[in-house]
């Protein structure tokens, strides 16, 4: 390889490749995100009739015949593009707008999984819902990479008594 080719190669490795990685991460990530949001909205519409609340005591008129704990979780990873933007942000401060869609859909996905878990087992409503976030430690140890963020939604699911089994009725 003559020196010109070597220099072209170095140029690409130093500047072209990281840029390519960034743009690929951005475009593919955006496409996946839009698709996921669409799926989330569809499923939320499907389960909207199910009461899901954060009350920590059950409303009296629910008259539960059975109950259990249900949960749903998801682990998402922060892609390269987002991490670079967050790194730049942490110099000037402010809202990291690129993380918001990711965390939003992760939380809604976790909630949906909890609801699906309850539905699958035949329950009709969930109360005392709690949402937790935790960061998974990176095994690499350079301190800056993140293996992922876990979103957890859990609550108590109940089977409602006969009067309220189909709560979408208007009164």
């Amino acid at each position, binding site marked *: 390889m*003559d*020196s*010109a080719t070597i*220099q*072209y190669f*170095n*140029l690409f490795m*130093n*500047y072209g490749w*990281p840029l390519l990685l960034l743009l690929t991460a*951005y475009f593919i990530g*955006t496409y996946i995100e839009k698709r996921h949001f669409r799926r989330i*909205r569809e499923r*939320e*519409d499907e389960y*909207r*009739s199910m*009461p899901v609340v954060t009350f920590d005591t059950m*409303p009296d*008129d629910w008259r539960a015949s059975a109950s259990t704990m249900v949960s749903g979780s998801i682990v998402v990873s922060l892609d*390269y*593009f987002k*991490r*670079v*933007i967050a*790194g*730049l*942000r*942490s*110099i*000037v401060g402010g*809202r990291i*707008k*690129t993380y*918001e*869609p990711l*965390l*939003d859909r992760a939380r809604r996905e976790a909630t949906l999984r909890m609801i699906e878990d309850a539905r699958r087992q035949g329950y009709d*409503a969930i109360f005392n819902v709690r949402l937790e976030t935790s960061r998974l430690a990176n095994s690499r140890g*350079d*301190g*800056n990479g993140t293996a992922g963020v876990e979103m957890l939604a859990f609550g108590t699911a109940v089977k409602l008594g006969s009067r*309220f089994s189909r*709560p*979408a009725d208007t*009164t």
Partner: protein
Amino acid sequence: MRHVPRQPREGINVSATHPLVEAGTLVAGLTAIFIAIVLLLIFLIEVVLYFVPAEKEAALFRDWLPVDLVTVSPADERLYQAQLLVDRLAVYWEESPYEFRVEIDDSAVANAMALPGGLIVVTQGLLDAVESENELAFVIGHELGHFRNRDHLRALGRGIVLSMFFAVTTGSDVSGLGIKVSDLALRGFSRRQEHAADEFGLAIVHRHYGHLDEAWRLFERWHESEGNASDIVAYTSTHPQPDDRIRQLESLAQREGWSMVGEVTPLRW
């Protein structure tokens, strides 16, 4: 208490700003700030250089050798002859505070370096590539030019300061990018330094031999064998392209009216 299924409006927890727009403004804003700080640091280095004059540097680094230098045997004839040549040429820089030392690096790649304290390192590869003493004298003169402009300290200082600055202020992902961007900006500056060193070296060769025959023959050989890389590649390397250097030297020789022909001195080993 009655359950009424309703949904919140979409997009409350998400900002309306397009991610590329956010990325673009962050990058542009931060690049401007980085460049300003880098220029400030360069200015500070100049100030430091002013307060550490060459004499002090020569005294401090008098016997210093870099740790990773692999040298040839001290009994090597070329080392002896190279040192004599350096001593002969250094005479033409009258105010030089340095006692120049020569070391020969074991590497097969042709290279020559100016290091703190008046240390000139040439590689085996370079000694194999030169075909006359005139060529070697020009290379040494070029390095003497670097000493005179104190380029070697500038490059060292900049490298250290910039790495520290980026490591402190950003996370690892971003600091790598920051270093690359500023590196690119500084290479333009290096090439100006190289041309200045070339001119100094040419002047010394002329004073010593009385003519410039074969002085930059080394560049001509490199130019013939490798051709010229494109402009982008040229921009990103620290040395100017061989043909660019040849043109500068030819125009200097013409301006000064220096003779281009004379008897070429062969290598003495």
